[in-house]
């Protein structure tokens, strides 16, 4: 350690710009990315911000016209539009319920898939399949609908208990389950709604956790096996070594996955707000759509910042003493 700092100070004496050189090196490494970023994204950012204060019309002969109308777009969306606030609230609420489930589920599966066992590669592939299916043509072939139909036609697939209720048309219907829960247990309606919502969301969660599982897997592979070995020699149980070794060392990636899941849930195509923005675009109201997108963007950014700040207090980095 001291050798290194001595070498550094010697270098500093010889050449005063040693740190500057390293700064420069840093900028050289990032420059391709930054250039691309400025070229391709920054302009878009600025333009769409500009559009959100304007009335933009696409002209039939080509090109477009723009007229500055101040905050009118925002006023229209937040005060006049009857649906936007509600949809925004729903999107945020869904996200808050889904993300802990997705992250916990994917960590759990990743830990299982990281065990030494036969057929591990096959299992890994299986858990990534929903991600592959969710893209491009496969999606376009309107698979989703027919798959959902297929799911519903197979009793007992979703909940296991549904087989009991086969005659009633496959899955436990939402309403029945709620009634049942009200009667059986003295649950409060809010709690029942959350539980039923979570059960309905299983398909959703399972389908949206492929990427997160892979991220966790890559992270788990980076944890040195020697730590586990020495813990085992010290008499550490599997449970303890998960919480004392795996969990702290994987915590940076838990933060990553929380943020990824937020982004995924905010920008995913199945989000009502996104549908809304896209359909507003198609109507030709680019100004309104941009304003909507910016409101949405700010809400999402706020969430990421708040959750990121809270979560990063619990994140443990190996390198930092």
């Amino acid at each position, binding site marked *: 350690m001291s050798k*290194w700092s001595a070498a550094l100070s010697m270098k500093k004496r010889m050449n005063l710009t040693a740190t500057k050189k390293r*700064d420069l090196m*840093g900028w050289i*490494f*990032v420059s*391709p*990315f*930054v250039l*691309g*970023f400025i070229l*391709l*994204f920054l*302009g878009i950012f600025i*333009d769409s911000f500009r*559009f959100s204060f304007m009335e933009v019309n696409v002209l039939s002969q080509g090109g477009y016209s723009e007229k500055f109308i101040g905050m009118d777009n925002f006023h229209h969306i937040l005060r006049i539009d009857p649906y936007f606030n509600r949809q925004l609230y729903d999107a945020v609420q869904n996200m808050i319920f889904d993300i802990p489930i997705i992250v916990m589920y994917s960590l759990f599966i990743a830990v*299982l898939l990281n065990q*030494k066992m036969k057929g591990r*590669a096959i*299992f890994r592939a*299986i*858990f990534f*399949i*929903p*991600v*592959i*299916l969710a*893209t*491009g*043509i496969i999606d*376009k*072939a309107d698979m989703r609908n027919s798959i959902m139909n297929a*799911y519903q*036609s197979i009793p007992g697939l979703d909940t296991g208990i549904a087989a009991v209720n086969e005659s009633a048309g496959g899955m436990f219907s939402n309403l029945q389950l709620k009634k049942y829960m009200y009667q059986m247990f003295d649950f409060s309606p809010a709690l029942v709604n959350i539980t039923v919502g979570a059960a309905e969301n299983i398909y959703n969660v*399972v389908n949206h956790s492929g*990427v997160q599982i892979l991220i966790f*897997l*890559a*992270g788990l*592979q*980076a944890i*040195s*096996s020697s*730590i586990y*070995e020495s813990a085992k020699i010290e008499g550490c149980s599997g449970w303890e070594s998960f919480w004392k070794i795996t969990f702290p*060392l994987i915590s*940076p*990636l838990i933060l990553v996955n929380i*943020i*990824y899941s937020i*982004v995924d849930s*905010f920008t995913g195509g199945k989000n009502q707000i*996104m549908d809304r923005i*896209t359909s507003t*675009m198609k109507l030709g109201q680019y100004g309104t*759509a941009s304003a909507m*997108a910016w409101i949405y*963007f700010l809400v999402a*950014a706020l969430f990421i910042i708040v959750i990121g700040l809270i979560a990063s207090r619990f994140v443990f980095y*190996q*390198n930092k003493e």
Partner: protein
Amino acid sequence: MIHIKLHRSKSGIKRSYFADFGIYLFLLLFGIFMMMPMVYAISNSIKPLEEIWYFPPRFLVNNPTLENFRDLMVVMSDSWVPFSRYIFNTFFITAVGTLGHVVLASLCAYVLSKHHFPGKGILFSVVVLSLMFSGAVTQIPNFIIISKLGWIDSYQAIIIPAFASSLGLYLMKQFMDQMIPDAVLESARMDGASEWNIFWKIVMPMVKPAWLTLIIFSIQGLWGTGANHFIQSEELKTLNYALSQILAGGIVRTGTGSAAAVLMMIVPIIVFVISQSKIIETMSASGMKE
């Protein structure tokens, strides 16, 4: 002393048979659940047309036939542009886009993760914020920028923006934070390695699981590139676009469509399996001996 371990010792933590059984059972249950859509897609692609329209839909096929695939071949063979052109386009875009993205994102992530230079904090927060910006609203400005660059109707219009996708950068940066101890880099510098060498010889091998994962994501995204308003000439359009045109033929093409979907699945799955099998769990995290 640096000693990067290449092989993790074989004596992992031993589990009881009961625990093994539990893990298999759990994975099997969830695995079956995850496999359902794919099994359904495959069985749909070998269903004869009349069987596709059964209501309620049957999960498995009764009279398997390759009719759909044959139809697909017929439709493919009389396309306006030779079909191999679409296939080439998709492969080209996917390969170049992924390569560039992984290299650039890793370069940038390395510096963001392990160096200190003015403007670093701002740069990284801009990247994180851009993750949240939805594509839908950016259509007009995006088109203007691409057209001002003169890239309309060229491969660049798809490939270059893929290079600068900020998600990959963000992931790589976080992986590097987690996987690379500063001490390794310090000692490499002491031994006189240049930054370039450190990056290629030390950092990249250490984060192999990370960039293999990134490759999967990137290929996954680019493979699905479909119709795009930057591309107008038929010769530059992608496989996905061509197959969705076949689908657009209407209800009679349903079977052909599911055959096409099955064909499109094959490549991402192969890539996934290969890259996952390359992640041999040998890279130990720190490789440091204090």
